[in-house]
């Protein structure tokens, strides 16, 4: 297909994206959030166990706006959201692109349960705002978001679909394999599901559950089986955060992956005090896929 025809065919989904972004902004501004912009080119990318940053001329492209947004949170801005590009090296497939659009928001005083209520309200709001926006072959799948959501613990879904307890008998490779091969294919196609309470080792930047250190206060929302958003009750303990960064750095070094310097400015902000907060990161390109009923980012992104 020629370039002009290919792009013209994407017009309905481009118009849908524009409407989705407007609905998201309306939702957060109504709730007294501040829209912020933080650096895209960063001196230190957030170290995570399995995320690789793209080098950018002596600096890096951000893999997420998380650490800068938390510094704003620590400085006293209680409700923040941001829409912008993030970059991850080597991630390319039907559901991944090395450059993608992220919606990220933080709410001081909240935990992951509050954030689950908020994302449900957000996605219902967006789905209803754009439900009549379908044009031509594009039918907006608003019912995926407006049907009652299912909330299930990671432990329960693994016991049912994979036959073992990933909290008591955690094993990284087995967990990730069964998540992809057994759990995710079992998720309903017609609605949203939140998987909650991950094994502590899958906690990333989440705090551990008060009273049960085997669990991390993290959830993932799937829309019609497509992984859409991740949330934490944010880790606010600077010493624990430093320990996790160092542990991931050690594991990354051992397997030959790039090791990034510690983000001391972020760690100092945590040490000076960040309020208990909830945070959510949502892949906007995937939200478009789910809303438009498309199976690949090829049909969402005009340029890949």
């Amino acid at each position, binding site marked *: 297909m020629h370039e002009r025809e290919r792009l013209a065919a994407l017009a309905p989904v481009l118009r849908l994206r524009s409407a989705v972004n407007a609905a998201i902004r309306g939702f957060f501004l109504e709730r007294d959030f501040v829209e912020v912009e933080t650096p895209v080119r960063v001196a230190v990318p957030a170290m995570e166990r*399995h995320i690789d940053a793209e080098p950018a001329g002596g600096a890096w492209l951000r893999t997420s706006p998380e650490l800068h947004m938390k510094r704003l949170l620590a400085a006293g801005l209680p409700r923040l959201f941001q829409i912008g590009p993030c970059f991850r090296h080597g*991630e390319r497939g039907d*559901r991944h692109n090395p450059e993608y659009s992220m919606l990220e928001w933080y709410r001081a005083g909240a935990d992951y349960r509050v954030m689950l209520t908020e994302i449900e309200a957000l996605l219902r709001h967006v789905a209803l705002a754009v439900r009549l926006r379908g044009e031509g072959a594009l039918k907006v799948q608003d019912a995926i978001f407006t049907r009652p959501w299912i909330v299930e613990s990671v432990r329960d879904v693994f016991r049912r679909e994979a036959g073992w307890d990933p909290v008591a008998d955690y094993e990284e490779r087995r967990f990730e*394999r069964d998540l992809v091969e057994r759990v995710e294919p079992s998720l309903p196609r017609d609605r949203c599901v939140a998987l909650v309470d991950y094994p502590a080792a899958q906690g990333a930047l989440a705090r551990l559950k008060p009273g049960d250190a085997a669990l991390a206060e993290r959830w993932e929302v799937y829309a019609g089986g497509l992984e859409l958003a*991740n949330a934490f009750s944010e880790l606010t303990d600077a010493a624990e955060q430093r320990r996790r960064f160092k542990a991931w750095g050690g594991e990354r070094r051992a397997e030959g992956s790039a090791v990034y310097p510690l983000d001391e400015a972020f760690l100092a902000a945590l040490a000076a005090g960040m309020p208990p907060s909830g945070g959510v990161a949502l892949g906007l390109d995937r939200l478009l896929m789910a809303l438009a009923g498309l199976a690949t980012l090829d049909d969402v992104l005009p340029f890949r």
Partner: protein
Amino acid sequence: MAGQYSAGDLRKGLKVEFEKRPYVVTEFNFVKPGKGASIYNCRLKCMLDGTTMQRAFRANDVFGVPDLEEKTMRYSYNEGDNYIFMDVNFEQTTIPATVLGDSRFFLFEDCEVTVLFFNNNPVEVTLPTFVEKVIAETQPGARGNTAAGNVTKPAKIVGGYELPVPLFVNEGDTIKIDTRTGQYSDRVLRR
């Protein structure tokens, strides 16, 4: 092995060396669950024997760049199960019948082929898509197998290969064979 690929280089159509054998990636699917590690789900087709397998690779898995070379050669002659080919510099290469498979029946003198070498050993011979062969044996006007809708009868070409042909094909006729499938394609009318 001449260099390395990492799992991040994998894509449909890439040729890699894995467990000392050359493969072409025929299906590729990247998945990365939540905060987990990247998984590269691939179907690989072995370039030596055409067998396929499904494998899930990890970000730090590495592959060799297979030492593959394609050469245009011409068929000269055979000595039993050994088939002798010659390149533009008149260098000879002997290719056994096991590598050629049924292709050996479709060769003719001076036939131009593409030979794929892996680690300097011939592993695949690609013939012209269509070759012409003379029918050595077939029953005249025999009633053949009509089950598939195409009415055919068995025939044998000079050199011994058997294939189904339409009823109107007679001994001494020249036919075109599709070397990709080994099937009858057309009758060649001689004036």
